């Protein structure tokens, strides 16, 4: 709850400081400091649990606070790595940072809601600033188009989400996810329809197949700085909300029997579509967009599992995937040419940057000793716990093998192909290199010792 209040108020504060402060460096400094403060304020709540929100609509337990810490930490890394690139979006620098703060406020609600009203508000608070950020380059047609598409699709999926909530309310008479008592003998058809609508709405939001079609277009069209955030922290928050809702409200045995197969099929479709389309991309940015779909497929596996292992897996996945993708995008933003050819010879020209990028790509593939491996391991074992899901786990492993192809193609281009990398050398500062290496080390550290994240769970 501290995180929600702090980010909201600090976002407003940033808006106003944008009115009075002209210096871009000062605004960036304020934004980064605020993110550090938010991390501390959120951590403080871990040790001193505060009061719940009046009305009992929000309850921040240790899992929520841990996820908030991951989200805030990743955003801090993101601000430090790519904060300078916000200046390319347009002239309203403070507003862009403020919108990120508002998104994080929504993330805080998404990780700790106990009422469907708060779920709805969280998803909207996360989405609406993203529509603006996606279209922030006003004279760039691709950015405009991405923004409009994202907006129309996002609002459309909100309709489904709301219909699901309304049907569930119609059957149970409450919005409180802990008080629905769906485990009784007879199951109301309204409940099943409602769950189906909720699955459709939430799958839209997290970009799972068959509702993924907006994802590559929007991620490709939006400015790279924005995509980097949309594809990571925001996506992870969507999954946390998804898992929280399903593990609290719909986990009774006679209810899971109805939706597990649907979710498993969605996971399988997402994995197949994401991986096999990513193989054919020529642009690295678009490849990363499809790879984010395939990673979403792995995160849906945690929903199939629904246990403590699933929570371990999704939290690790959030950290591993967000850090690696933010790092990979930070390198991408500094390229002039977004195709694989642009990366040729990067290993010789910028060895440290190429090394860090390699670590990120290995982590996304799921090579042992990186965070991605541990995350995939926990997610897959949580899915295995649920009987009859062996086929899905085998499919996921095959897809991980396919994903190695397109990630390794980039590593191949960086190290083994001759050429002049299309990188902007004046934007590779020593500080940037240091941070990139630090992020890569963090990815390796979580991979070697996942307790770094998981020991904080009760």
């Amino acid at each position: 709850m501290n995180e929600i209040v702090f980010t909201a108020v600090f976002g407003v504060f940033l808006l106003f400081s944008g009115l009075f402060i002209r210096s871009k460096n000062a605004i960036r400094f304020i934004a980064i400091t605020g993110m550090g403060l938010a991390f501390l304020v959120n951590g403080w709540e871990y040790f001193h649990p505060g009061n719940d929100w009046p009305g009992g609509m929000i309850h921040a337990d240790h899992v929520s606070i841990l996820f908030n810490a991951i989200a805030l930490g990743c955003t801090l890394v993101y601000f430090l790595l790519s904060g300078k690139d916000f200046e390319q979006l347009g002239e309203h620098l403070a507003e862009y940072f403020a919108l990120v703060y508002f998104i994080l406020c929504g993330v805080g609600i998404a990780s700790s809601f106990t009422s469907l009203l708060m779920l709805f508000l969280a998803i909207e608070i996360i989405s609406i600033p993203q529509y603006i950020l996606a279209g922030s380059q006003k004279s760039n047609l691709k950015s405009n188009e991405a923004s409009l598409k994202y907006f129309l699709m996002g609002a459309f999926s909100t309709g489904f989400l709301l219909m699901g909530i309304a049907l569930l309310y119609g059957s149970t008479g409450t919005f409180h996810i802990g008080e629905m008592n769906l485990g009784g003998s007879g199951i109301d058809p309204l409940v099943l329809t409602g769950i189906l609508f909720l699955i459709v709405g939430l799958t839209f939001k997290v970009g799972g197949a068959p509702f993924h079609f907006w994802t590559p277009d929007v991620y490709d069209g939006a400015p790279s700085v924005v995509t980097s955030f949309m594809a990571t922290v925001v996506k992870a928050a969507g999954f946390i909300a998804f898992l929280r809702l399903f593990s609290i409200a719909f986990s009774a045995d006679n209810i899971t029997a109805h939706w597990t197969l649907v979710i498993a099929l969605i996971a399988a479709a997402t994995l197949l579509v994401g991986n096999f389309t990513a193989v054919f991309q020529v642009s690295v940015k678009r490849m990363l967009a499809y790879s984010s779909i395939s990673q979403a497929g792995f995160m849906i596996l945690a929903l199939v599992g629904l246990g403590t292992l699933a929570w371990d897996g999704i939290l690790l996945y959030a950290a591993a995937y967000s850090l690696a993708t933010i790092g990979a995008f930070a390198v991408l933003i500094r390229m002039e040419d977004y195709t694989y050819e642009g990366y040729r010879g990067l290993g010789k020209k910028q060895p440290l940057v190429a090394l860090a990028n390699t670590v990120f790509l290995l982590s996304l593939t799921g090579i042992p000793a990186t965070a991605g491996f541990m995350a995939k391991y926990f997610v897959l074992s949580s899915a295995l716990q649920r009987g009859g899901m062996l086929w899905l786990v085998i499919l996921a492993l095959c897809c991980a093998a396919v994903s190695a192809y397109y990630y390794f193609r980039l590593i191949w281009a960086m190290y083994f192909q001759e050429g002049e990398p299309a990188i902007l050398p004046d934007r590779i500062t020593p500080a940037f290199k240091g941070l990139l290496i630090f992020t890569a080390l963090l990815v390796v550290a979580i991979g070697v010792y996942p307790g770094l994240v998981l020991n904080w769970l009760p």
Partner: protein
Amino acid sequence: MPISNYIFLSLALFCIGVMGVLIRRNAIIIFMCIELMLNAVNLMLVAFSKFHHDASAQVFVFFIMVVAAAEVSVGLAIIVMVYRQLHSVDVGVMNRLKH
């Protein structure tokens, strides 16, 4: 009146909205259809609120309205921005992202 009538009415409105979104090509019309979907939900929530003698759904409706207004303002701004660039709000014209 039985509650099922309200459910049928709002589901019918919802389906009209969904079909509109899927069929129409004008961004503004699509947006109006989305609003229709949201209002179908509002109607259903109010009917259920009466049915359960519980006012929390009515408060939910207020929140939906306010969030929809926020979406309208952002969405119209985006549509105006696109119109100034392309001089059209036809979603079929937008194909720069398809490779």
